[in-house]
């Protein structure tokens, strides 16, 4: 039992996020899920997981959630940011509204959450961890992934490094995991042809996309105190798609 480990998983109701919930639960962490949807209500209740329904679009509600967490179980020392929205649209196809939408969910909301999380964390002397989920598309540009999605994920990768640089001295450790395509609700509706094409490009022999556990196990390692010298780093887990 990791008594003092309290982890906030933003977007914890979705694919990779929920994978993290399962893995962290097994390792005895106290878990708080923040998500705009709640499709695992019973599971959260049965496992003593605290759930907040929020799209974290407003700073006031973020602050209130963080305050409530502190009151209920104490200050969280780990934040995993899995919120994100996928789009395959090219820059010439996308409307201004859709551009705004993606940048909001994938970049602006995470920034607001991370900002307020850091503000309450730097007062502490102990190590605080932030783990962001970037994307392979954020490193090399997207192929099937849309341009705005790729841009937003590039932003997450850069945000990771900036935070590590600026707040590393304050004991904030911030890293980023860049998954290749993973079998999640997000990729469920991708056209079969696209998936087949991606799988054929994997350097590894694989019948399907990556699993959420490929990513959530890495999250668990980065969250643990065994990885404290990894700072501002990118962990690529992509089936060898980017070599």
């Amino acid at each position: 039992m990791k008594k003092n480990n309290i982890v906030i998983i933003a977007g914890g109701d979705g694919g990779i996020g929920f994978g993290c919930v399962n893995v962290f639960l097994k390792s005895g962490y106290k878990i708080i899920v923040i998500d705009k949807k709640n499709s695992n209500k019973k599971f959260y209740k049965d496992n003593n997981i605290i759930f907040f329904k929020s799209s974290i679009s407003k700073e006031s509600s973020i602050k209130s959630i963080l305050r409530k967490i502190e009151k209920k179980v104490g200050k969280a020392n780990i934040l995993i940011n899995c919120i994100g929205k996928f789009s395959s649209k090219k820059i010439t196809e996308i409307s201004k509204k859709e551009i705004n939408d993606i940048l909001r969910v994938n970049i602006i909301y995470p920034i607001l959450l991370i900002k307020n999380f850091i503000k309450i964390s730097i007062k502490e002397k102990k190590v605080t961890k932030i783990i962001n989920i970037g994307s392979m598309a954020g490193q090399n540009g997207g192929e099937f992934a849309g341009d705005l999605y790729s841009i937003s994920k590039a932003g997450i990768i850069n945000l990771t490094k900036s935070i590590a640089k600026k707040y590393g001295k304050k004991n904030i450790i911030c890293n980023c995991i860049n998954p290749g395509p993973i079998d999640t609700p997000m990729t469920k509706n991708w056209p079969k042809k696209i998936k087949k094409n991606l799988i054929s490009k994997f350097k590894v022999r694989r019948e399907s996309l990556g699993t959420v556990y490929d990513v959530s196990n890495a999250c668990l390692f980065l969250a643990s105190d065994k990885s404290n010298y990894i700072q501002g780093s990118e962990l690529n887990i992509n089936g060898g798609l980017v070599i």
Partner: protein
Amino acid sequence: MIKKKEKKVAIITGGSKGIGYACAKKLAKEGFNIAICSRSIKDLKKTSNFLKKEYKINCFYMAIDASKNNQVKKFVKNVVKKFKFINVLINNCGIQLNKKFEKLTFDELQKVIEINLFSYIYFSKLVGLQMIKQKEGTIINISSVLSKFPLSGRLPYSISKSGIDALTRSLALEWSKYNIICNSINPGHIYTDLIKKDIKKGLISINELKKRSINNKLGSLEDISNFVHYLIKYRSIYQTGQSYFIDGGFSIKK
């Protein structure tokens, strides 16, 4: 098809000291049988005795010059003979050289590249042939942050480490189809005996090394062996061909 053994087996080059020793301890604790090599029979004996006594495992060792292909061949042959199966190869052995390029002789350069890079290539090839037969294997190459962010006066070392990263990507490309995964770990400044010695001799300043990290800290041997352990414990075929930087922020500070 070669039958899997109950106890897993890991080869660790340069396994009697420093990062290699830390990895050997970590894996022995997990119940791995260990095969180590280095140049010093004395260090090997000491390490092997410790591992056997502490973790109740089998340990094979042999003093070799890893930059000589025929000696590597002999070592690997003996390991296969003894353990029949090799699950993990950790390429780790290496030397440092601190000298400005204009003063560097080609013999010195060649020596560093032979030990730091060619030994990795020899081991990868010879152990890889066994792993291909097994249809399973994990190769971890200990590289360095200098592979991408060299330091002045460290040209031979940096070149050899860049070569290691390219070796990692190439192996992942060619051998993933045999269920062999290969990754590099790129440590920043780790507080090893080698560095301790250089600090003592006044060759490098500890503060200068520390300053290259964000938190003004050197890494520990466990920082590296913990990651090795993670890569092996959660072995994912989806995680291959990558260089993982464990450097306290060295690479982003540059």
